């Protein structure tokens, strides 16, 4: 019935909730990674600074929900007008004899009133929405820039801490001794292979000796798998964690950028869309006049 339309803000509100979640997760994993490398001081500092990001995330959610409330108030206005009209119509039908003088007139007046009521609600909602969107846009665009940079650097913090975990697996003294020993075995085996190739069939006796050593080396290398394979597993897990972190922060940054674009699009939709302020009301006025005219003609 109405001629005014409000832009769809639901996807933006949903995206804001997602952004807020990304901020919560980003902060959580970064602190956990810092704690895991015994960087408690950095973890505390980061956590304190990140609280402001969480507050910003909460404010963004409240803002987005306020946009939804405005749109809902416009829709609710139309809905309440409709409900009231239905009830009044039923009232008129139930009391037909009461309003026998002009039952049709009551309905027409009622419908016109409903239309005006709808339009007033929608226009007010559209104007309030435009006001809120325009008022928020500069701060919101800047917040998005800050949060994107924050998420980039939080991602780097996560990566650096995660890299430290991975590197520490290799650089601790016990592992170094073991890796050195294993490397020596491998180098000796390679040297024996090279000697065997060079000697060929001319040094069969020597080859027998080298074959025995090669078997020994093989057995020692196989025994080293007891600690070498778990180490490789830990390294693979650390690399995977680092990749997962990179994906999380990349997604969070992308989400922030798209969210800011979505808000800018809403602002444009309100600015470039149909005129909300007067067209609906004018049409409503015309309709009221026409309906009033019809009542007079009866």
């Amino acid at each position, binding site marked *: 019935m109405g001629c005014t339309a409000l832009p769809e803000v639901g996807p933006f509100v949903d995206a804001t909730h997602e952004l807020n979640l990304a901020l919560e997760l980003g902060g959580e994993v970064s602190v956990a990674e810092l704690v895991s490398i015994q960087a408690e001081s*950095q973890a505390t500092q980061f956590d304190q600074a990140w609280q*402001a990001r969480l507050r910003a995330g909460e404010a963004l959610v409240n803002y987005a929900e306020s946009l939804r409330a405005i749109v809902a108030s416009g829709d609710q*206005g139309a809905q309440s007008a409709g409900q009231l009209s239905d009830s009044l119509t039923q009232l008129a039908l*139930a*009391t037909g004899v009461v309003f026998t003088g002009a039952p049709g007139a009551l309905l027409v007046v009622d419908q016109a009133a409903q239309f005006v009521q709808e339009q007033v*609600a929608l226009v007010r*909602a559209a104007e309030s929405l435009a006001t809120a969107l325009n008022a928020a846009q500069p701060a919101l665009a800047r917040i998005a820039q800050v949060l994107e940079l924050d998420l980039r650097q939080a991602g780097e913090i996560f990566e*650096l801490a995660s*890299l430290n975990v991975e*590197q520490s697996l290799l650089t601790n003294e016990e592992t170094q001794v073991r890796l050195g020993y294993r490397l020596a075995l491998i180098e000796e085996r390679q040297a024996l292979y090279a000697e065997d190739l060079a000697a060929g069939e001319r040094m069969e006796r020597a080859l027998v000796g080298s074959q025995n050593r090669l078997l020994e080396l093989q057995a020692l290398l196989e025994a080293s798998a007891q600690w070498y394979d778990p180490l490789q597993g830990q390294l693979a897990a650390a690399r995977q964690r680092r990749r997962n972190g990179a994906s999380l922060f990349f997604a969070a940054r992308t989400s922030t950028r798209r969210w800011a674009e979505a808000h800018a699009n809403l602002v444009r939709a309100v600015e470039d869309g149909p005129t909300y302020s007067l067209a609906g009301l004018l049409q409503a006025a015309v309709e009221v006049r026409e309906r009033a005219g019809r009542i007079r003609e009866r």
Partner: protein
Amino acid sequence: MNEWDINTEAGWSAKLRELLEEADRVGESLEERRALSQRFVQFIVHSHPHTETIKSLDRIADAARRNVLLGSIDERVAAIGERTLALVLLTERLEETTVEAQAAAASIRGEEARSALESLTLSVSQVKALAESLRGGEDRERLTRLQAALERLIVVQQEVEAISDPD
């Protein structure tokens, strides 16, 4: 011959000195820091034999590696901290807009409720006026219908109350 093909403690010591000098000159980018930390790891992995001197060099290299990473973390934590005040101010500005938007939504809802209540009041007045005109009359059928009208009005009133206070 690769850069790790070193066979003397003096050679490893010189190599570590070279890496430490690189650490002094390293840029701020994540890539440079990551690459430098990996070079310290390579130093530790390749250095040999595991004499006390080499182990000591490894410990220095490992501390330098960790410092490169923690220093990079410190810089980023500080950078995030430096933007906090600006973010707090921006958040406050947004919160003001939110309060205004919430008030606007509430106002629109309130206006709807007022409008509905005005209509309801009008309907009640009409029914009351009619009841007044029928007082003392013989038209039982009209009185019955009027009773039905009042019952409907109660329903309308309940609906309007629900609209006025959806929570």
